[in-house]
């Protein structure tokens, strides 16, 4: 009896999580005609199946290819810089005694809760004045600021768990301080740093507000913004099939990361919030 309840529960979780994903995949294989005329309203593409046509059309779209490139480049650079800076700060928070530790953590928390849209008008104005509008750095900088809190909280929670005495033990055993750091501390800290990087990447990849307000052309426009501005051949009808194909492509990196690192992501999400 209890077992059936659990099976039902698991099934509910899986359906909840995967049904909309299956829906968007299904939509991406429906022909544009059938979608706009509503001739094939079912969940699965039956007589409107078009194979890879939508994917081909999306991939042939220069603006979409640029958006993918922008998103990948901007998100990866922001992640790298954010994690480096956060590692330094988290090390200080976890290992050193200093005044203002609370201040740093409070600032981080406050920024994690900051209403992003309230920065839109001042940043829009400022970026246009100093020439960062519609450029990669113009998005990388805000992404860094808004991912740092998450990275600092996650990393300092991880760093607190590291048995730092082992570093001294290695030195007592004759290792130089560099060897002790590289052979002992780096392998212990790496999983935490890696987890923080994944969460940071997700944030940057997902951002929409900065993406639409601080860019105006395919120069720097990331995928979420490009998706929302995507207009097919008919400007009065959203090209659902094409959009779905584009959305599926934009989701592939997320799915790959989740498949490879699910355990780490869960650990990172909960450690920062609960132990922090």
């Amino acid at each position: 009896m209890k077992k059936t309840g659990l099976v039902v529960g698991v099934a509910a979780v899986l359906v909840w999580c995967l049904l909309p994903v299956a829906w968007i995949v299904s939509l991406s294989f429906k022909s544009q005609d059938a979608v706009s005329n509503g001739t094939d309203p079912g969940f699965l593409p039956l007589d409107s199946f078009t194979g890879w046509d939508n994917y081909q059309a999306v991939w042939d779209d220069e603006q979409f290819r640029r958006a993918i490139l922008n998103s990948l480049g901007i998100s990866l650079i922001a992640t790298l810089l954010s994690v480096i800076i956060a590692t330094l700060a988290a090390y200080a928070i976890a290992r050193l005694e200093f005044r203002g530790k609370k201040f740093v953590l409070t600032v981080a928390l406050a920024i994690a809760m900051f209403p992003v849209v309230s920065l839109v008008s001042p940043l829009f104005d400022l970026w246009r004045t100093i020439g960062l509008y519609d450029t990669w750095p113009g998005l990388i900088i805000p992404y860094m600021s808004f991912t740092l809190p998450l990275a600092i909280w996650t990393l300092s929670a991880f760093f607190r768990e590291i048995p730092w005495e082992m570093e001294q033990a290695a030195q007592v055993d004759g290792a130089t301080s560099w060897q002790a750091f590289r052979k002992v501390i780096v392998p212990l800290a790496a999983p935490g740093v890696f987890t923080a990087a994944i969460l940071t990447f997700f944030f940057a990849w997902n951002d929409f507000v900065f993406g639409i307000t601080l860019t105006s052309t395919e120069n720097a426009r990331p995928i979420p913004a490009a998706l929302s501005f995507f207009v097919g051949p008919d400007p009065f009808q959203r090209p659902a099939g094409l959009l779905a194909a584009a959305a599926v492509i934009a989701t592939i990196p997320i799915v790959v990361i989740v498949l490879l690192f699910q355990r780490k992501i869960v650990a990172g999400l909960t450690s920062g919030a609960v132990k922090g």
Partner: protein
Amino acid sequence: MTSTVATPATKGGRQAPETSDRAKAESRLAAKLVAPALVVMLVVTAFPILRALWLSFYNYSLTAPEDKEFVGLSNYLTALTDGLFWRDIGMTVIYMVVTVGVELVIGFIFAMVMHRVIFARGVIRTSILIPYGIITVVSGFAWQFAFTYQNGFVNGWLPFIDDQFNWFGDTVPAVIAIMVSEIWKTTPFMSLLLLAGLAQVSDDMIEAAKVDGATWWQRLWKVIIPNMRAAIMVAVLFRALDAYRIFDNIFVMTNGAVNTESISFLTYRQTIEQFQLGMGSALAVLLFLSVLLVAFIIVKLFRVDLAQARGEG
């Protein structure tokens, strides 16, 4: 002096007792390590919000920048006496309360399932992380297409809904559609935080309550939930402030039509679509203040609850 800026590697209890020099060196090192993070965080937030505060006292439109003039508090007066502002604030609070409430219930059920289950853990974890990681805009599109009557499946699946029902023609159904997308995307986050809280409740305590004859319902409310109050508070606080900023789903699904606009959306519209930087800045400041207020209220509410819980125990 400079030689005392020791590398962290040599920090340890084996050496001489701590001197104030040593503490100072540690402080200096910490300041150097923390400074880049603080600067980056504040440059993009503190400075722009101060600038917004300054701009909010001006009548400043990008379409006529040379007409910029100081108008004092008149932008604030205009906003605060306009029904639109209050309607959007009310809408935002409704979005926040309903989505967080529903997520708390569904997220808790999911957390219970994940806590108990011993098979297929990897599969469940993978699936639950997909909505978490997916782009909100994609979630918005998926649900918008699902709800449209021309080609969506929702009308066909729901027994009491007419097949031609237009979800985006009126406020209430459109808001429901937006909330569904929001709830779908963010419940996993909630349930993972609650799962972590659930893992900290000791099984012995639950077992003891069982032995004492507590029913399942009593164990849930008297043992499990009070013991994971901290996790619930973190989850609610984070999600509520996130929900209060709702923007992406509204932009994609209705673009603010049929009165579905939130306060974030109004601020965006004033600035980017109408180029009213002065008014937009005033709204930005009000948005910022209202988030502070919401955070304050939530913290206060939970403190009261915590005190009550302690009184009971």
